[in-house]
């Protein structure tokens, strides 16, 4: 039934609307879910980085159910678009916003200034604000384990590394792999090919082919698609998965994979918001806190080596195995870190030099 709008019904409706609008306390009642927004750099179906974050988002939903409402925006370019998207999420009632790529750092800080009541969480950044926290994962811990396995299994002494974009995080990963590999195989070489992209399956695969044609017999990657591992499988060499367990793509080739685990952190921060205890923090966690895990070993990893890898993992968790412990030489052979010292976190986060054994 359509009611004709006359003056009376119009006023009545308007009054009802006003009452609602005039009771801000109602808006804060327990019935309203906490709105949480996510900004992703890639598609949720990339089977790599963004896929991992989306699993984290789903962990929030699974844990809190109706108490939260999450939304995400995917494939957001790192640039002016990012700021627009973050601003949009903040102004549409999201109280907690996760921005999940390094390039979102400045846009996040900028938007956070105009929305002091909204809390922001930026992945892999290093700048905080009263309402901006940063969180990152010590991926290099996983790469130390990978380096050890690769150094033990390589026959040619050449380990391939498909590198994404030249930021300290990637250089750190290359170096961690090389250091660990050379502990077991002193003449091991890590051959690096940069594809200057986080995600381009075709190009990642081509880079893998280039490396294999040049004698690499173990493939590691710092890019997000399973393409390099798939090439490794086809060509009959070994490889390591990235961000997700990629065994489906390379049942014979995959030695293990470094698996991102954002869920526990996301759940913890959401809980803090619900409890009203959210505070700015700078979190850089690793294997110990469960920010990353290693996928089950593939058949190509012999029993004894599994034990060694597990020991390294236990050592990292206990703090007795330091992936960046001296002596560490740079590419020219000069000692950068003397015996008995380890590279401090601050220097790791700005790492821009290669260790001995890296060929790039």
């Amino acid at each position: 039934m359509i009611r004709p709008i006359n003056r009376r019904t119009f006023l009545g409706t308007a009054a009802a609307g006003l009452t609602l609008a005039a009771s801000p306390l109602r808006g804060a009642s327990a019935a309203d879910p906490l709105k949480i927004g996510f900004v992703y750099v890639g598609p949720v179906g990339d089977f790599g980085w963004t896929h991992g974050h989306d699993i984290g988002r789903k962990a929030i939903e699974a844990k809190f159910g109706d108490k939260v409402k999450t939304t995400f925006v995917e494939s957001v370019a790192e640039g002016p678009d990012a700021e627009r998207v973050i601003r949009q999420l903040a102004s549409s009632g999201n109280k907690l916003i996760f921005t999940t790529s390094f390039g979102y750092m400045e846009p996040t800080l900028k938007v956070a200034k105009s929305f002091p009541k909204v809390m922001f969480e930026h992945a892999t950044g290093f700048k905080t604000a009263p309402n901006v926290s940063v969180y990152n994962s010590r991926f290099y811990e996983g790469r130390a384990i990978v380096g050890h396995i690769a150094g033990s299994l390589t026959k040619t002494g050449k380990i391939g590394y498909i590198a994404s974009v030249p930021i300290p995080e990637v250089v750190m990963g290359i170096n961690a792999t090389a250091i660990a590999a050379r502990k077991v195989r002193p003449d091991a070489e890590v051959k690096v090919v940069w594809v200057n992209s986080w995600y381009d399956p075709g190009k990642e695969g081509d880079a893998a082919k280039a490396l294999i044609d040049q004698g690499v017999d173990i493939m590691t990657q710092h890019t997000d698609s399973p393409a390099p591992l798939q090439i490794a499988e086809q060509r009959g060499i070994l490889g390591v998965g990235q961000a997700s367990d990629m065994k489906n793509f390379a049942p014979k080739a995959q030695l293990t994979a470094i698996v991102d685990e954002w869920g526990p952190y996301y759940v913890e921060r959401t809980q803090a918001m619900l409890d009203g205890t959210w505070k700015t923090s700078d979190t850089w966690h690793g294997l110990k806190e469960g920010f990353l895990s290693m996928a089950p070993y593939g058949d190509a990893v012999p029993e004894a080596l599994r034990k060694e890898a597990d020991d390294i993992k236990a050592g990292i968790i206990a703090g007795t195995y330091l992936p960046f412990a001296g002596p560490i030489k740079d590419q020219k052979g000069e000692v950068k870190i003397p015996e008995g010292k380890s590279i401090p976190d601050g220097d790791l986060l700005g790492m821009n030099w290669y260790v001995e054994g890296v060929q790039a």
Partner: protein
Amino acid sequence: MNIDTILPMLLTVIAAATPLLLASIGELVTEKAGVLNLGVEGMMLAGAVIAFATTVGTGSAALGIVAAMLAGMATALVFGVLTLTLMANQVATGLALTIFGIGLSSLIGSGYIGVPVEKLAHLDIAGLSDLPVIGPLLFGHDVLVYAAVAITFAVAWFLKHTRAGLILRAVGESDLSAHSIGYDVIKVRYMAVLFGGLCSGLAGAYLSLSYTPMWVEGMTAGRGWIALALVAFASWRPWRVLGGAYIFGGVTILQLYLQGSGGIGVPAQVMNMLPYLATIIVLTVISAGPWRGRLDAPACLGKPFRPAS
């Protein structure tokens, strides 16, 4: 460098060039008829996901390839109806088609992430594939690699030597003249657009069945745009499209190999610029000197046809 190092590199170049060649030869025909379809990336993604889903579902790569052609044509048909029949702006519609293709393909593909598929089989030609060097280089590919080259030959011949090709070019150069002597401009353009869709679909199928046999969202990674650029780069000539695709693929691959071989001392970022640098150089060379003035786009490119009735 000897043949043992160059051969695998050449094989990789052929693989990298094939999707570019397929997509751009289709777009070339579309543009020759006077229609600018910027939706290549979207049509490729549609082809890629449908090819993958069909192959996984039926276990037949042949059916996957056929389905990809149909998917490419279906998306092209949407474009055709909007721009040719309803006379929507071609640039805007093409961009929308790309966005639509990205969205639709992720929706369809969401159940196929992380599912592996058998790589498209190489055609084994008895005896020939086993020849040293020539064997793997010329006779060791899958059907789509040959299809790409065959389609290019066919298109070149069609445009130059057939009456239908002449009509198609006439429609692209002067739609009103073609109309006034009795040719059905809209029909010709529909066919050209559909052929473009078919080729883009094949390019997508090559990506998801052969190049990287898997489905992940956005796996074309901008190749549709490179294909579009290649058509202009080739100044709307099939043979130059063929050359351009191999040059572009070649330079991309070469820089990966140079990085891997180490010791050239050039930063990776400079190496990554090479394909684009090569494009600029070739474009400059083509548009200067004896070739000047032959960088000619079809005169009616991008203009909707409104017959004076």
